[in-house]
């Protein structure tokens, strides 16, 4: 009798544990449609068209481990002389798993002096961030960073 009690308690705890595990799954899937790598690729294609995107020149500064996804400092800089005939036209930033793939488009000009912008962004999940720079000669350069986010932004409930 006593032995049976123990085993039911163990079974109960086991069941409760697995219920908790399975209960957690719907919470994750309740999120609105996420930007997937496919939508990320589509958003990038919207900007660059058929042009080739090469890796380099761009430096994307984001902390690799983010505690609060609601405000993440980000700096994008492009190594470019910024002269009147060789300058950065625009900087585009994308993400992989927020509800929308775009973060921001920043348009500079030959008088920017330094191709660098900073802002604060939101991240809904641990994911990859991509920055693409468009130069005056029409070439595209990119950099990407993987970020781990502890507290997600964007989709939490309003209390």
């Amino acid at each position, binding site marked *: 009798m006593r032995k049976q009690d123990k085993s039911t308690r163990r079974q109960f705890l086991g069941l409760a544990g697995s219920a908790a595990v399975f209960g957690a799954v719907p919470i994750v899937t309740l999120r609105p449609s996420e930007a997937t790598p496919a939508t990320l690729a589509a958003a990038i294609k919207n900007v660059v068209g058929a042009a080739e995107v090469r890796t380099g020149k761009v430096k994307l500064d984001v902390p690799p481990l983010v505690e609060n996804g609601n405000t993440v400092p980000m700096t994008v800089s492009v190594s470019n002389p910024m002269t009147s005939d060789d300058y950065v036209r625009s900087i585009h930033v994308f993400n992989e798993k927020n509800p929308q793939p*775009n973060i921001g488009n*920043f348009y*500079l000009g030959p*008088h920017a*002096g330094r191709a660098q912008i900073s*802002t*604060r962004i939101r991240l809904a999940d641990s994911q990859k961030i991509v920055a693409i720079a468009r130069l005056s000669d029409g070439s595209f350069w990119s950099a990407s960073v993987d970020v781990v986010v502890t507290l997600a*932004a*964007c989709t939490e409930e309003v209390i």
Partner: protein
Amino acid sequence: MASALINVPAKAKRGEIIEIKTLMSHIMETGYRHTTAGEVVPRNIITSLTCRYNGVEIFRADLFPAIAANPFITFFTVATESGKFDFEWIGDRGFTETASASISVE
């Protein structure tokens, strides 16, 4: 009420690269959050920031819900002549806000 904070150096040497910092107080509601009743909170964000230096556009940004609340944006420009920087934020629900700062270039 919305309010802007701008940081532009008051003085600069001709040709110097200066940093411009802008901060606008705004909720930047993403449109992806729900109330406990399950209703979607409608989107309310700033969609663009433009900066003009003596009337010429030197910087423009398209913003998306992934920009954090109270958008803080910094960028650079070359101080060419004394004058004024005009900033304009445009957003959802007819949100517009302007601010300006002057600089003297030696």
